[in-house]
Structure formats: structure tokens, C-alpha cells
């Protein structure tokens, strides 16, 4: 490929960065709070809730994300074909344009959020359970309420403990966005494969690799900075 072609392909891939970042950003935005909820459900003292949550986590962590994306994406069209649905649901499903970019994004996002919430939940749970009982007791002895204890005493310590594991997860997420091309969602990998065919060259893949690498590096530096910031105590 000529230098000019490389620049052109880089420009094209750059446009596909936006849908990639959209998956990345929205997944983080939704999976982190959902992960907290899931972590709480798993620690719930009412056993059936804890048990069901655990089944969900096991499935999410035990099957490939790619499979989950495909299942979510095709679930709705298949559901639409089934008989005996209540009227409003059938109308709702029929109203959906399954081929649209918007539907694709939503389906991919649902799969990513469900998957990553399970991983984040385990990280949060590990972090919360690592806080010694004495911290709760010290706060209670000082008359602090449950919510003040959690937000002022427990959570700050949990955050410090989970930064390294979360950092891993977030960097993995950047690279996992490439899985969305399995349902032809327009992200970087999809474009890179198209350009590879176009030019019969591996260079577009190489450029895509540089993109992922750059994003991973930015995140590595960012998390390194956060870790350092939180290092004021042991």
C-alpha cells in the first residue's frame, strides 16, 4: 500500500472509532452500576436471590461473549416469529427495525452490559468482602448510620482495592468491542477487514491494531495515575 492509501485507510478507520467508543463508553456507564447491584444481590442474605444471581454470573463468565452477543441479537427476531404473544408485545416487536444500526447497537450493548456487569460484580464483591469486620464495628461504635458507614468508610477502601482488577477489565473491554463485528456492527475491526479485502493487504489490520494498542495504553496510563493517587495510604 502507498503512503497515501495508508492515510486514507487510517482516516476511514478513525470514523469507525466512534461506534467502537460508543460501545466501550456505554458499557462502562451501565455495567459498573449494574455490577454493584448484582454484587449486592449476590451478597443478599435471602438465599434464593443470592443463588439465582450466582447462576447468572456463572453463565455470563462461563460462556463466550461472542455467543452472548449473537443470542441477544437474534433473540428478538426469533421471538417475533413465535406464536401466541400478547398483542402489545407483538406490536412492539414488529415495530422494530432489526436491520437498523440502532437496533444492532442496542442488542450489542445489552450483551456487553450483561456480560461485564457479571465481571464487575465479582470484583466489587471481592473488594467489599475484603474489608475487615472491624471497620463496620468501629463506625457503628461511633454512631454512624449504615449508609454513612458504607459511603464514607467502606466504599473508599473498596475503590482502592479494586482499581487493579478493574483496570484489567476495562482494558479487556476496549479489545472486546471488536467482538461486535460478529453481528456486523460497524466498529473498527469490521472496517479493517473490509479494507483488508479492498487492498489485499494486511496493513489495515495493522492500523487497527495500533488503534487498540493506543487506547489500551491511554487506559493503562490513566489507571496507573489513579492507583498512584490512591497510594497515599496502605
Amino acid at each position, binding site marked *: 500500500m502507498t503512503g497515501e492509501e495508508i492515510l486514507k485507510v487510517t482516516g476511514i478507520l478513525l470514523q469507525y472509532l466512534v461506534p467502537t467508543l460508543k460501545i466501550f463508553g456505554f458499557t462502562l456507564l451501565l455495567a459498573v452500576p449494574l455490577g454493584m447491584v448484582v454484587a449486592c444481590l449476590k451478597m443478599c442474605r435471602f438465599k434464593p436471590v443470592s443463588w439465582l444471581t450466582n447462576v447468572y454470573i456463572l453463565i455470563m463468565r462461563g460462556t463466550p461473549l461472542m455467543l452472548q452477543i449473537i443470542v441477544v441479537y437474534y433473540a428478538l427476531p426469533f421471538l417475533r416469529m413465535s406464536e401466541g404473544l400478547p398483542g402489545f408485545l407483538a406490536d412492539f416487536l414488529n415495530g422494530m427495525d432489526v436491520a437498523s444500526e440502532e437496533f444492532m447497537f442496542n442488542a450489542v450493548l445489552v450483551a456487553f452490559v450483561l456480560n461485564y456487569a457479571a465481571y464487575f460484580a465479582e470484583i466489587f464483591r471481592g473488594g467489599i468482602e475484603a474489608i475487615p469486620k*472491624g471497620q463496620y*464495628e*468501629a463506625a457503628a461504635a461511633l*454512631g*454512624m448510620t449504615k449508609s*454513612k458507614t458504607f459511603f464514607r468508610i467502606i466504599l473508599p*477502601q473498596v475503590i482502592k482495592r479494586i482499581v487493579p482488577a478493574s483496570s484489567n477489565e476495562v482494558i479487556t473491554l476496549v479489545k472486546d468491542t471488536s467482538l461486535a463485528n460478529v453481528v456486523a456492527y460497524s466498529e473498527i475491526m469490521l472496517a479493517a477487514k473490509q479494507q483488508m479485502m479492498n487492498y489485499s493487504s494486511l496493513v489495515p489490520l495493522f492500523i487497527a491494531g495500533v488503534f487498540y494498542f493506543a487506547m489500551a495504553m491511554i487506559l493503562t496510563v490513566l489507571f496507573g495515575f489513579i492507583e498512584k493517587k490512591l497510594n497515599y*495510604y*496502605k
Partner: protein
Amino acid sequence: MSILNVKNLHKDFGKLRVLKDISFDVNQGEVLSIIGPSGSGKSTLLRCINQFERIDGGEINICGMAMTYRDENGKTVYAPKKALHEIRLKIGLVFQNFNLFPHMSVLQNIIEAPVQVLRQDKQTAVANAERLLKKMGLSEKAKEYPCNLSGGQQQRVSIARAMALNPEVLFFDEPTSALDPELTGEILKVIKELAAEKMTMVIVTHEMQFAREISDKVIFMDEGYIIEYGTPQSVFEDTANERTRQFLERYRTR
């Protein structure tokens, strides 16, 4: 004035009764030491009074407020939540392993409850914290984090933290047991100073010499019972009880 009054307290862990018919009194300005072999129920007793464990029978009164009382059927009932909170603020607790908040500086540890729970304004709380730190000989350490302090310093901070709520009574559960032997002295000294100021205190300890010097009353516990309850003289010198003698003998030969 009675600060703490415990009557016929029972506590079970499942089938195991770990506190049996415990009764005693602490008046204002008094120091009560609780001694006894490990597993005799000393910590559990403190934890019941500090509302970490629910009692299964008996009464606890603190500063004239009933933490638990008996209903018409003789069953033990806890006071409403609001009263329990109020009672808790009358009590300060110092733990064996300090339990300072590691993400907060020494000063923040001390002002946290006054500001967040008592809603003191920050200036008042800081001024009070600085006064307490001075008393503990830790004025220079206000900005340090607990991880940079020795065990003895951490325990002194935790005493200051407990005192910051102006409690009517301070409880200590083996305050020196987690410390290197050469650091126990500084904690015992601080507690002695508090005693000299007539701070009401209940101290679980294995420091027999210290307990004997500092206490107005001593309780010796074994297997969930109060075996001895009296002046240091009566427990340490005059006891006729075989178990008490054996226990004290073990500490004398140490």
C-alpha cells in the same frame, strides 16, 4: 450516679450459653477491670453492652436509659432504635486492634463522628481533636495516616477518636494485647491519666499489675460466670476461690 448497670444478663450462641447471670454496676468516675481466661466471655460481654450482640435475657441500663428491659411476660426487649442510638453515643469503645479508618488521616479519624454524627461544625471538631491529640502526645501526627504510625500511636489515636464524642464511659477490650511488649506501657500510662481525671472506664485486660493499681472494682470471669466481683484487694489478695487463685498464679509466674 450509676453509669452502667447490668442485671441477670444471659447470652447464647446457638446452644452454647456464653454469659450466665451477669450482674454488676459501674458508677461515675469508677474504673472496673474485667479479667479472666481466654474464652470466658469478656469480649462478648463488652460486645453486648456495645450492641454488637443481642442479649437473650436480662437488663442493661446506661446513664439512666434502658437499653433493654423486661416486658410484662419477663421477656427481654430492646429499646427503640432512636434510644439505642442515643445510648451508643454515651459509650466509647477502644478495640484490641484499633480499627482506625486507614484512608483517613489521624485528624480525620477523630473528627469524623463529631462532624458526621453529632453535626458539630468542623472548626469546633478540629479544635477538640487537637486538644485530644495533645493529651495523647500526638500533636505532630495529626496529618499522618494510620499506616505510618506505631501500634502504640494507633491505639492512642483510637482512644482520642472514642473520646471525641464525649462519652460518659469508655470500654477497652484488651487495649494492649495487639502491641509489642515495649509499647504497652504508653497505653497503660494514657489510661492511668484518664483514670486520674475520673473518666469512667471498663477495661478487659491481662495486665494484672495494672488492673490492681488502677481499678476501683475487679471482675474475674470464667466460663461465662462472674466468679469474683469486688475491690482489687478482695480479688487479688483475699480470695478464697480456687479457680481465681489458679488463674492469678499463672500470671504471677509469667
